[in-house]
């Protein structure tokens, strides 16, 4: 598996987890194995118990069977004895024999009787003896020997009691185990002593021992013992299976704690465990033989019982082991499979992350614990200006190459990122380092992070250094510092007091002029202190603050302020709220100007202005008065002068009418003259009134359609020229913003003049047009009339000034004066060009007003 030195990718983590899971898996497996083993053991124990119980039951059954058989056998023997004892024929024969009556025949009968019994039931021999122990007849027929004292004691016992008596199992003089039974032969008459006794000799080897030794089940070690207590010892009555010649010869202390036979005679019953006469551990069942003081002990070697159990145990253990081994193998296989899969994922993941690292814009350099570089990415090469080979130490690096600290000083070796981490074992970030690639070059600025990677044992394995290029930021910061410095210099040299203050009134910054204006002496660095309360009038301050809060700024707020020494100054305050772009916090920057001197000057200006205004008002009032007088005068002219004229006209007409034909031609001429003069005077008065009004009337400025205005003025003139030949040429007349009514008067006057002074021209040519000149519109009226001498052009627009006599062209000399007055009032100019007999052109210009003014 490839080691992944840098990356702790997800696949890597998965693998780590997978490995950590190994112990869990093993523990789980062990628990499972223990469970399986436990289960197997339990099953085995169940079997063992079952086998043991089976063995115990077998032993118990054998013991009881044997005990029962022995009881039955002894009862049979007793029966045999009693049969003989009660045999009257035998008894009679015996009596005959003893009496010597028919002795031989009796003897034969007796012999036959006893022999039948002997053969039938397997007795060794049967002896008919006298009650005092003298043998009479013996079957099989052999030489009778005298009976042993033990037998004789039995005979005496039987003769005395008249009951069948049997001996213990004992060793005869021949060293052979035997049992004797003595049956007394009842006398002919009841109450008499028995006539004789029959001694029946039983050889236990014939019947007793064989069926004791006979084991009903196949067993390698099964054995039945017949024991009885004799004194302090337990005597083995039968021949043993495992030792010969023991019948009645082997005896062991009855106090032996582990000997099952001893346990039997001590009264134990049922199943016991112990060690037999051979010293072999056995399992035994004890049963007493009824009617005797014998005990049957059926025993079997423990090993015989336990061997199959052990075998099964081994088998179970083997099987369990096999299962566990198989399970372990399977788990291991699965484990390996998963590991291989994770390995593949890790390889893929590592490839992915390697690609990522390769394409990262941040530089990544991985150092071994000895600071040797083991891995780097292309960005690192680019940022550090070193090739991959140079980084790996394979190629020499320019000796000028080094790191610099943020302040530009060369960086000490121990401060190199990797060395810092190796020395401290701690990660760090945000360190700034400049890289000088070649001598004299500007350093490239890097922001470095570095962190250690530890192995499983806590030992430092690798140091990872990552960095990004922050040259642009550093340069921006340098620019910012320079800008800050310039700002500072500017602020310091400002004549205005500058301050910057938090919303809580703590001064952040200020310049010397600030101290000077507020008269602060001594310590002139007030930063961090409270802004001095320089307000004289609290309402001023409240107004200032309110305006600042409402608009975010205050401009030229004039307030009375107090210097430190208590003197007053007029302070011109400006301020605005500055919101920090990043923190969003607000502070206030403001200026203070000592306005005292300027305030005084300004006050003077205000005073002078007020005076001037008063003067203007006075003059205006005077002028208004004069205007009023003029109006009154004009009114009088219009009203009071016209009335007498009307009367003159009226009464002269009435006079002429009344006189009728009495008046001569001359008189009639006089009346005509009066009439004409009166009419002229009327026109003159009307013109004067008009002239007066154009000076006084209020301007009504608005958009004026010049074309329409001209036609309104032309209307009456066209009627006048109805019988004349006039060539009208009317060009484009742009609209204008002016007074419509006044302009109509202008057109009426100018065109009227043109009509009047072309009276003798045929055809008369009148051209009306307009042209734009320098933002003004110039309108003109040109005619081919009598024209005028330019020498007198200056007189054209004067009141009552005329260039022609009334006889030539009637007129009041007010029309053009009126035109000039109107055009001048509208902000324009009027002028004329002409030549005697060659026509005249009158021009007027109007300013190109865009907006109607009130």
């Amino acid at each position: 598996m490839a080691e992944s030195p840098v990356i702790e990718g997800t696949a890597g983590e998965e693998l780590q987890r997978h490995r950590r899971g190994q112990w869990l898996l093993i523990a789980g497996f062990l628990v499972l194995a223990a469970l399986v083993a436990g289960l197997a053991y339990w099953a085995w124990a169940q079997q063992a118990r079952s086998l043991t119980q089976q063995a115990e039951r077998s032993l118990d059954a054998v013991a009881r069977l044997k005990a029962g058989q022995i009881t039955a056998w002894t009862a049979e023997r007793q029966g045999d004895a009693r049969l003989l004892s009660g045999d009257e024929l035998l008894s009679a024969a015996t009596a005959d024999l003893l009496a010597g009556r028919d002795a031989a025949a009796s003897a034969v009968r007796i012999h036959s009787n006893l022999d039948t019994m002997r053969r039938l039931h397997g007795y060794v021999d049967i002896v008919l003896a006298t009650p005092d122990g003298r043998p009479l007849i013996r079957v099989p027929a052999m030489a009778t020997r005298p009976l042993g004292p033990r037998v004789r004691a039995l005979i005496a016992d039987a003769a005395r009691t008249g009951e069948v008596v049997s001996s213990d199992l004992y060793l005869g003089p021949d060293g052979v185990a035997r049992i004797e039974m003595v049956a007394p032969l009842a006398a002919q008459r009841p109450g008499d002593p028995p006539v004789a006794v029959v001694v029946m000799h039983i050889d236990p080897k014939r019947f007793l021992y064989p069926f004791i030794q006979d084991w009903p089940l196949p067993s390698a070690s099964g054995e039945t013992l017949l024991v009885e207590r004799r004194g302090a010892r337990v005597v083995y009555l039968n021949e043993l299976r495992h030792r010969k010649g023991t019948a009645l010869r082997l005896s062991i202390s009855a106090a032996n704690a582990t000997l099952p036979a001893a346990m039997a005679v001590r009264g134990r019953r049922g199943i016991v465990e112990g060690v037999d006469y051979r010293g072999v551990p056995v399992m035994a069942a004890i049963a007493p033989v009824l009617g005797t003081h014998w005990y049957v002990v059926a025993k079997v070697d423990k090993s015989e019982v336990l061997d199959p159990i052990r075998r099964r145990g081994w088998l179970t253990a083997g099987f369990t082991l096999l299962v566990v081994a198989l399970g372990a193998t399977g788990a291991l296989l699965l484990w390996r499979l998963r590991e291989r899969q994770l390995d593949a994922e890790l390889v893929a993941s590592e490839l992915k992350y390697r690609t990522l690292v390769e394409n990262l814009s941040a530089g990544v350099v991985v150092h071994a614990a000895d600071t040797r570089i083991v891995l780097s990415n292309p960005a690192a090469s680019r940022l550090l200006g070193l090739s991959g080979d140079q980084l790996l130490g394979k190629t020499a690096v320019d000796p000028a190459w080094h790191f610099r600290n943020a302040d530009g000083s060369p960086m000490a070796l121990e401060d190199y990122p990797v060395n810092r981490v190796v020395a401290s074992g701690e990660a760090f970030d945000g360190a700034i380092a400049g890289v000088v690639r070649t001598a004299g070059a500007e350093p490239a600025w890097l922001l470095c992070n570095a962190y250690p990677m530890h192995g499983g044992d806590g030992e430092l394995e690798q140091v990872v250094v990552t960095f990004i290029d922050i040259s642009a930021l550093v340069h921006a910061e340098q620019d910012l510092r320079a800008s800050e410095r310039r700002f500072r210099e500017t602020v310091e040299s400002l004549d205005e007091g500058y301050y910057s203050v938090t919303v809580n009134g703590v001064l952040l910054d200020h310049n010397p002029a600030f101290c000077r204006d507020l008269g602060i002496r001594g310590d002139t660095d007030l930063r961090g202190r409270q802004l001095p309360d320089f307000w004289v009038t609290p309402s001023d301050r409240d107004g200032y603050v309110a305006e600042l809060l409402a608009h975010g700024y205050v401009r030229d707020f004039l307030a009375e302020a107090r210097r430190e020494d208590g003197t007053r100054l007029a302070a011109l305050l400006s301020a605005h709220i500055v919101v920090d772009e990043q923190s969003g916090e607000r502070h206030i920057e403001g200026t203070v100007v000592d306005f005292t001197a300027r305030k005084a000057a300004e006050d003077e200006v205000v005073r002078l202005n007020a005076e001037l205004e008063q003067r203007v008002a006075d003059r205006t009032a005077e002028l208004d008065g004069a205007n009023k007088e003029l109006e009154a005068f004009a009114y009088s002219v219009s009203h009071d002068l016209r009335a007498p004229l009307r009367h003159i006209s009226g009464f002269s007409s009435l006079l002429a009418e009344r006189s009728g034909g009495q008046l001569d031609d001359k008189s009639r001429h006089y009346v005509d003259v009066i009439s004409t003069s009166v009419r002229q005077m009327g026109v003159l008065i009307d013109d004067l009134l008009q002239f007066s009004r154009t000076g006084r009337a209020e301007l009504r400025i608005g958009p004026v359609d010049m074309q329409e205005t001209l036609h309104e003025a032309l209307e009456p003139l066209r009627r006048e020229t109805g019988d004349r030949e006039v060539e009208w040429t009317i060009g484009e007349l742009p609209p204008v913003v002016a007074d419509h009514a006044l302009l109509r008067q202008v057109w009426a006057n100018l065109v009227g003049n043109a009509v009047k002074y072309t009276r003798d021209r045929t055809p008369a040519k009148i051209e009306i047009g307009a042209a734009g000149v320098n933002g003004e519109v110039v309108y003109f009226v040109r005619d081919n009339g009598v024209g005028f001498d330019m020498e007198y052009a200056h007189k054209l627009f004067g009141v009552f000034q005329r260039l022609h006599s009334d006889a030539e062209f009637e007129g009041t000399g007010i029309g053009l004066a009126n035109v000039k007055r109107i055009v001048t009032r509208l902000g324009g100019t009027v002028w004329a060009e002409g030549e005697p007999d060659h026509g005249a052109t009158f021009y007027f210009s109007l300013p190109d007003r865009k907006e109607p003014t009130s």
Partner: protein
Amino acid sequence: MTQRYPDILLAEDNPNDVELTLEALAEHNLANRVTVAHDGVEALEYLRRTGAFSGREPRLPAVVLLDIKMPRMDGLEVLREIRTDPKLKRLPVVILTSSREEQDIITSYDLGVNAYVVKPVDFQAFIEAVEHLGVFWALINERPPHAD
């Protein structure tokens, strides 16, 4: 019994103008139905039948020809009184004056004058104007119903 002849009240202080006006009206035999008031006060007294006119028959003229410039009370004042008097407010009133002052014309129309005529200086024109007035208002125009 109301008379069929139309009445004209001429309020004019200038005797020359009165004479010329009557001369003009005489042409159409209207002169003998003209009553002349020599100032505004007299004109109102006539119309309201008070003062010197308290005894006159209760009849309103067909039209009042009113000069503006008069002693004691001027023509515009008389016009205002007429238009605010419930009994006189529908009375046809014509201003006959020498004034061509714009302000006078505007005020007259604002007060509800029925016509505004500037006396021409020329006699022929004057005669024509007054004749037209007399004929129109006294003969052609339908009078408003009497308030009383």
